[in-house]
């Protein structure tokens, strides 16, 4: 089964990053400059090796794992050994159809990010940090131990903090701290929830992999298995009251990460200040950690509470969706607009979850994936815009179609993909969300006016994207004719590595838009498995359980 593969997935980039950083740690500036080229190449090579691995795993070249048909709470490539035995902490990794697309996405985005930010300054340090970021992100997705999960969850903050701090914009100091503190605050509450959950396990019958000191375990499959058994027959695992509290505590951490309104204000600041590479990974994968976490923990463990909080989640999702979109319309900063559009898209994920329909969940999963490909392109475009025109204001540069056709084309493509143009990756998720939402509203007898939100957003999204394109790609009026030069230099189009990155991202946006089943079949299968393995035995009918 080649189970060992999941180990180097995490270890390899982290170790590679540390080794590369050790190379440059005690060097002076000129040395670092000379080193930056080989280190960049090495980073690219490492990330490509990773991508080869995960792609091979997808095509069943490694491990011969069929990603469809993995039943709920079963994992492939599992690997476990004892870590901190006294507390029941194990190094447990494994993949299922929920985490694998995210892992692949991470490994896909790493080389693309490296290429897109090929000429980033101080590359000798920058690229290893990107690698470390990738390793931490993969760690989050493969971890099957609460302690490990939390550990990697926080570990992702550190490289991102440095990316923003060292390579960020003018207010990077403020933004990086805000980013760190905001998400940290939420996740420590989540941590307390995890620990409380941990101690609510029954210690009398020692669990598998239990700690010698505590008699409880951090092992996610074991906990999930227990929850699954206890949740049946209308029972609430751990009891209704505790379950609700724990659900809320865990969700807080994930909602902030997602982010959902009103916990979203760290995101625009972080994005605007972050360097392009940071933004790409932040929007591409890091936000998805929130959604991934929701599926992995609160939903899998507390389906009753999910149903109980359904209305709240639906409201938050709807507010995120609408609020994010409307705020976009009022933005003058290109990157901020894109950041808020991420908030809006994450609302789609929440709504999908709140529908409690396999289709809605598949929509959420596919949105995670599709947004993970589209949003890096959005930010790559923003980064290129900033890099070449030294401003992030919409309208700082006009008539790009004339002087920078590559950037203009990329921008238009990315914008169109993000506003959900059919046959590009984002559309399928939006469509499925709409259908699932409507189906849910009708079936459960909710007011159909919930539909107003998505409808409004579909129009508003088009409005802000088109409006911004009018003021950048096209020319906006007599008084703002496109400049013929920039600081005396001819206006540059994007550089070759950037072009390459754009082409790759665009290509995959089209591939997953035209052939969504490549990823969607596996996600669909997972949602069916979790529904048939978890939700149906427990709820067994609308409005049941609670």
């Amino acid at each position, binding site marked *: 089964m080649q189970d060992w593969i999941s180990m180097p997935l995490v270890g390899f980039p982290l170790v590679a990053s540390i080794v590369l950083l050790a190379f440059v740690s*005690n060097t002076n500036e000129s040395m670092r400059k000379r080193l930056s080229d080989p280190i960049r190449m090495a980073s690219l090579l490492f990330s490509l090796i990773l991508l080869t691995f995960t792609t091979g795993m997808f095509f069943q070249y490694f491990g011969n794992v069929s990603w469809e048909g993995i039943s709920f709470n079963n994992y492939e490539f599992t690997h476990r050994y004892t870590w*901190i035995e006294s*507390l029941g902490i194990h190094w447990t990794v494994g993949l299922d159809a929920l985490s694998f697309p995210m892992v692949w996405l991470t490994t896909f985005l790493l080389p693309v990010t490296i290429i897109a930010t090929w000429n980033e300054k101080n590359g000798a340090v920058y690229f290893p940090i990107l690698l470390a970021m990738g390793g931490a992100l993969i760690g989050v997705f493969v971890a099957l131990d609460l302690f490990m999960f939390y550990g990697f969850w*926080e570990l992702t903050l550190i490289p991102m903090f440095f990316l923003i701090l060292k390579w960020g914009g003018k207010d990077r100091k403020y933004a990086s701290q805000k980013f760190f503190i905001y998400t940290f605050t939420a996740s*420590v509450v989540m941590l307390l929830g995890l620990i409380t959950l941990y101690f609510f396990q029954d210690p009398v019958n020692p669990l598998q992999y239990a700690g010698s*000191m505590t008699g409880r375990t951090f092992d996610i499959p074991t906990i999930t298995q227990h929850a699954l058994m206890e949740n049946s027959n209308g029972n609430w695992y751990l009891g*209704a009251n505790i379950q609700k509290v724990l659900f809320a505590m865990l969700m807080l951490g994930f909602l902030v990460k997602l982010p959902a309104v009103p916990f979203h204000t760290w995101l625009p600041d972080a994005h605007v200040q972050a360097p392009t590479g940071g933004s790409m990974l932040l929007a591409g994968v890091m936000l998805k950690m929130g959604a991934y976490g929701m599926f992995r923990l609160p939903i899998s463990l507390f389906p009753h509470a999910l149903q109980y909080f359904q209305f709240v989640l639906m409201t938050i999702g709807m507010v995120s969706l609408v609020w994010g979109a409307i705020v976009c319309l009022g933005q003058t900063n290109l990157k901020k607009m894109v950041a808020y559009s991420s908030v809006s898209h994450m609302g789609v994920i929440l709504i999908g979850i709140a529908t409690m329909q396999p289709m809605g969940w598949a929509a959420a999963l596919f949105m995670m994936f599709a947004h993970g490909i589209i949003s890096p392109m959005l930010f790559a475009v923003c980064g290129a815009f900033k890099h070449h025109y030294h401003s992030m204001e919409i309208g700082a540069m006009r008539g790009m179609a004339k002087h920078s056709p590559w950037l203009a084309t990329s921008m238009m493509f990315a914008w169109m993909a993000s506003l959900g143009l059919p046959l590009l990756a984002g559309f399928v998720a939006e469509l499925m969300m709409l259908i699932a939402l409507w189906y849910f509203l009708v079936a459960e007898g909710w007011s159909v006016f919930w539909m107003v939100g998505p409808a409004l957003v579909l129009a508003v999204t088009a409005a802000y994207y088109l409006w911004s394109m009018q003021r950048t790609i096209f020319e906006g009026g007599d008084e703002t004719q496109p400049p013929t030069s920039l600081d005396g230099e001819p206006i540059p189009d994007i550089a070759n590595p950037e072009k390459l990155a754009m082409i790759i991202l665009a290509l995959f946006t089209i591939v997953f838009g035209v052939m969504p089943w490549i990823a969607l079949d596996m996600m669909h299968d997972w949602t069916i498995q979790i529904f048939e393995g978890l939700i149906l035995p427990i709820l067994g009918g609308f409005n049941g359980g609670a």
Partner: protein
Amino acid sequence: MSKLTTVEPFGDGFVSALCPELMLFAGMLLLILIPNLGRGTFRIPGTQLRLPWLLGGTRFKFTSDPRLPAWIASITLGGAFLNVLYIFSQGLERVSIVSESGKELLLVNGFSRIFELIFFGALALAAFSSMNRLQVKGIGSKVTEQELYNNRRQADFYILMVTCALGMSVVALAQDLFVLFIGLELASFSTYVLVAFLKESKVGVESGMKYFIVGSVASGVGLYGLSMLYLWAGSLQFTVLAATFAESGTTALPLIGIGFVLVGFGFKVSAAPFHFAAPDAYAGATSPVAGVLATASKAMGMIGLVRMLLIVAAPESSDGSAVWLVCLGAMAAITMTWGNLAALGSDNPKRMLAYSSVAHAGYMLAALTAVGAWNWDAAVSGDASAAAVAVMTALLFHLVVLVAFKLGAFLVLSILESEGGASRLSSLGGLAKREPLLAVAMFIFMISLAGVPPMAGFLSKLLVIMGIVRVAVGDMGAEIADGGIYALGDMHWVWWLALLMVINSAISVFYYLRVVVVMFFEEPEEGREGPLPNGWQVRVAILACVLTTVLVGIAGDSLIRLCEMAAQSLNYNW
């Protein structure tokens, strides 16, 4: 658990049991003696005959080396530390040292050993890294560098360090409250002088004076409390006190007495509202000394609290809560919150670390509170006392790893201090450019203090929270499995301390990150662009701290077990 052997003072087994302390004593004597060796002669009275007796006079080149006392102290303390480690590796023996009249004086067990580890480790690191310290520049024109480097004063500094260690280990060993108090005073007096050691600077003496006055008042109150307890129980043996308390503990006299004693210890752990002197003392003292105050001294105070609260005023085993539970819980909440909020507004990194150590004291007090509530769940079966052990384990673990990252942070500051001061945040500016590895080390210390995985600070905080939650949850998990239904409010209220604690650690990220931002983002202060002063010793010490922080964070299992063993050895009735 190994058998308890009883030993009389200077009887069989006394030396092997107190080997580390005796090593310290010998080292202290050497510190007094060796730097004074010289070509001193002694004239036989009435004659012209001068006999060389090697004391005083022009000193030998070897003995006049300013680094010599530091080496002696470091070797002594480090030797003691290694000795303790060796003892751990050989398996512990529990030795009780009992006076002829049958009074139990000292007890060597896992609990005391682990504190010895903390004390000796912290002081050894501090002494070793002080070796190459240059004095702060520009304290006054009348002081020459020659004088500052004066060998004899260096000797004083390290003698005090060793006595401090000695006093602390007495505290750890003491089985009689008065013996404990004497050890505490020995350590305190040493620290008073160490804080005020820079007598050529306004800051140094001022902080010394403040620390001295507040400390003396606290120990005065404590001593008076001791006398009250003595009046009440007729003995200050812990065993006697505990037994008497179990009989008639809820009368006014012992409660007031215990309260007074706690004031004395509360000052040491800098718990609110007795923490006021701490920031001043830390800011004025040299950084390694401040580091010692924040780690070893705090651990010493914690021993007192543990002895008084958990041994003497032990929580009752029948229905749970100790009498002091609410009081200590409130104190913990106030301490952690106050410390964090005060640290937010501080621009002086040393003050900031001082307040952060106040906050850490709050976390530890929260853990102690949880121990006090260990038995609240009346339905609890035999497993419950393990909950108390778990919290205690967490507390000990926290104290141990605190040495690594808190002292480490102070040591980083000490390098800056010897360059030109570390009393402003901006003095850390551009550290990442000037010496990247040092900045990375500081970064690791900061995130460890903040409790970010995978550092030791995270594991310790996790353990503390886990301990508290475990106590709060009690046996509900098992009962839910049997069909019990519980709400959040059914948990013990110490759970809210855990919540407060996680929120506080989130707040604390603010000021820890600020340090990081300054190091990595801001330009160095004017005139400080160049390389940092040399001194491999302090860098080695920092490296040791970094390694401990990271390794314990990644693989802390054996240390957890060690602490668990120590916690179990404290067990009297839980």
